[in-house]
């Protein structure tokens, strides 16, 4: 496969995953804002937190200024001047898909194209009128549908592999960010862990990564930060965990290495990261500091993304 094609497909799925992450971030902020009335207001504003998790707080401060619910939803969902907005992500995903029309199945193309076209009919006013949660659900559903269609129709070759790589790298990145920001910004202090506010906030966090029920099934216990971190970082059976993502990333890279019979730096890098997750221990991670660990993971993701690009997408 052409390197350009691999690059386009990889970014196509990254952007879809990013759109979904944005919807999840907004969804959790929306839920938390509704629970304020119950007297459970946190010390941080949930919309401010949404901007920070999305990595859009600085851009928002420059381009919009005052943080309000509507302004944040608009900026993260619709703003054409925010390259991370759901709108911008789906547009970029569709542009990549369009350029690679010959490499993806008709069903895959139609899935992303239909999502994009439908989004063009939506505005903040409409979304607000119907309840924003329905919109966030729609974005997630569209993302699931897109992945499912690709899974069910794409031949298992380079195209599929690079699409999976994009999804998994973006997902690992988004899980790490959500956990990191929640843990350090949203939480009042570790001393308050276990309180009512805490319960709702951790609950909202788990919900935002579709993990609330899974948490309950696995732990059958109160929501505790260490367990949440363990679930999101180390559990191989939770599909959005860093560990699960890296199992997937490494196995694809290994397959590529086997196929092309080359020694790729990116494969070794991914393997090193996977080993830390596979044999990691949550107590040890907390001893060093979760924030430090997550920061290293986010940096590692960026480095891995660059290594993959060097190995496969920009061969000299």
């Amino acid at each position, binding site marked *: *496969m*052409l*390197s*350009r094609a*691999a690059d386009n497909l990889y970014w196509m799925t990254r952007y879809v995953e990013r759109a979904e992450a944005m919807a999840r971030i907004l969804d959790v902020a929306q839920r938390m804002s509704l629970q304020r009335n119950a007297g459970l207001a946190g010390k941080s504003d949930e919309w401010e937190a949404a901007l920070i998790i999305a990595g859009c707080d600085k851009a928002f401060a420059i381009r919009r200024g005052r943080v309000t619910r509507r302004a944040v939803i608009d900026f993260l969902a619709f703003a054409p001047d925010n390259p991370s907005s759901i709108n911008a992500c789906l547009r970029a995903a569709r542009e990549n898909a*369009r*350029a690679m*029309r*010959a490499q993806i199945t*008709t069903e895959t*193309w139609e899935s992303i*194209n239909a999502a994009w076209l439908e989004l063009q009919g939506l505005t903040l006013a409409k979304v607000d009128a119907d309840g924003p949660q329905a919109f966030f659900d729609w974005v997630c559903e569209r993302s699931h549908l897109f992945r499912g269609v690709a899974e069910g129709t794409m031949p298992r070759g*380079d195209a599929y592999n*690079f699409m999976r790589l994009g999804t998994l790298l973006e997902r690992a990145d988004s899980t790490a960010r959500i956990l990191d920001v929640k843990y350090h910004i949203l939480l009042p202090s570790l001393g308050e862990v276990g309180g009512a506010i805490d319960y709702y906030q951790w609950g909202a966090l788990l919900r935002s990564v579709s993990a609330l029920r899974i948490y309950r099934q696995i732990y059958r216990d109160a929501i505790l930060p260490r367990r949440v971190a363990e679930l999101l970082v180390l559990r191989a059976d939770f599909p959005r965990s860093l560990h699960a993502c890296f199992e997937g990333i490494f196995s694809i890279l290994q397959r*590529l290495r086997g*196929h*092309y019979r*080359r020694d790729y730096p990116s494969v070794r890098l991914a393997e090193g990261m996977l080993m830390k997750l596979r044999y990691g221990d949550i107590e040890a991670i907390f001893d060093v500091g979760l924030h430090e660990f997550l920061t290293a993971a986010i940096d590692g993701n960026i480095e891995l993304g660059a290594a993959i690009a060097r190995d*496969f*997408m*920009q*061969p*000299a």
Partner: protein
Amino acid sequence: MTAFDEMSAAPAGNGVRPPYQAYKRWLDAVPADLLARRRLEADLLFRRLGITFAVYGEGGDTERLIPFDMVPRILAAKEWRRLRRGLKQRVRALNAFLHDVYHEQAILKSGTIPADLILRNTQYTAAMRGIAVAGDIYTHIAGIDVVRTAEDQFYVLEDNCRTPSGVSYMLENREAMMRLFPDLFVAVRVAPVGHYPDALLQTLRENAPAGCPGEPTVALLTPGVYNSAYFEHVFLAEQMGIELVEGSDLVVKDDVVYMRMVGGLKRVDVIYRRLDDAFLDPYAFRKDSMIGVPGLFGAYKAGNVTLANAVGTGVADDKSIYPYVPDMIRFYLGEEPLLANVPTYVLRRQEDLEYTLDHLDELVVKEVHGSGGYGMLVGPKATKEEIAAFRGRIMADPAAYIAQPTLALSTCPTFVGEGIAPRHVDLRPFVLCGRAMRVVPGGLTRVALREGSLVVNSSQGGGTKDTWVLEDDAAQDIAAGEDD
């Protein structure tokens, strides 16, 4: 001006010409409401195909949805054989001419074609002088536009030796017809066209550089998604199973061309390029080309890659050269042309100029380097003022013009409004040149949908039809397209 009708032979006859008899029987038997239904289906079908394809051009659906007419344009096996012989002869001569003008220039030395007409032609690419190309073939894919005016009268209207397009319509139209009217294909023996991509790939491989080891790697080079023919590039690359590359996907090292693949660099031997000469290589041609490949022309000169079509073929299909193609056939092949040119007045010749100036109201006058209808006078449709103005332009630079009589292009029954009526058609068959010459039996039939219009261009209300070549009992040769 009454035109020859391909179905009824009107005005000369009023029956049904033999190639159309089976179709006409079917048409007469088929209930009107079925046809109406099929028309709707055809619309939907093309919209779907169209949407699949139209997503490429920013222009959207409208750009791509060239109307499709359900009545096929039918040629008998013997008509086709005659056409095919003529087409092959013509393209053989055009290739010989291209080799000659970039090497010995025998045809210029003999005085058959004025030397300045070639050497001062903007399409003459001096950089190609003395360069050897694989098999001495220059135009590997030629689209020759043919029109008909009577039972036995075909004319070549134009040669397209650079990057002729439209072959995807030939393939898609057939697909659509087979889906809409499967029973028709049982009743009538129509020669298949679906193997065109295979024939094209084989042709491209046969033109690999002499030193190419093993199976040659072929790629299709496109200007990119914003090109109006992009859907055709995607379609053909897909059908041939080759990579569709943009300039940035290719890199030249030590005069060898490589594709950037996920597994590393892969050598490319043959490039089917749908990019104009000027944009191919910023080092050799237009320096501002962002869509070309730096160093490509160097690799080409070194004989390490074949470009199809070759660089510099525009000098063979230029309007100023067209009048000389019959002479080329005589000069290189020692044969009389099997397909006639439209009679053409070359205004650099004094007698032709005088005749033309006396008959401006009857003639079509074309600027030789113009294309797409710019700088053109259609005498019978022009006002006195327009003719007067054009006369001035001709007198200022007669050599820049040619003139031709307006031809009564043949008509073919076509669905219009509520019924079927005759509309003018032309035909573009595609001639492939490798070790063998191949012409897939059919081509692109364009039809002028507006009543009386002779303009078949899609930008001006033109549509397309499926083109049928009928098989006869000696039909083995037809699908292969390789005889004579």
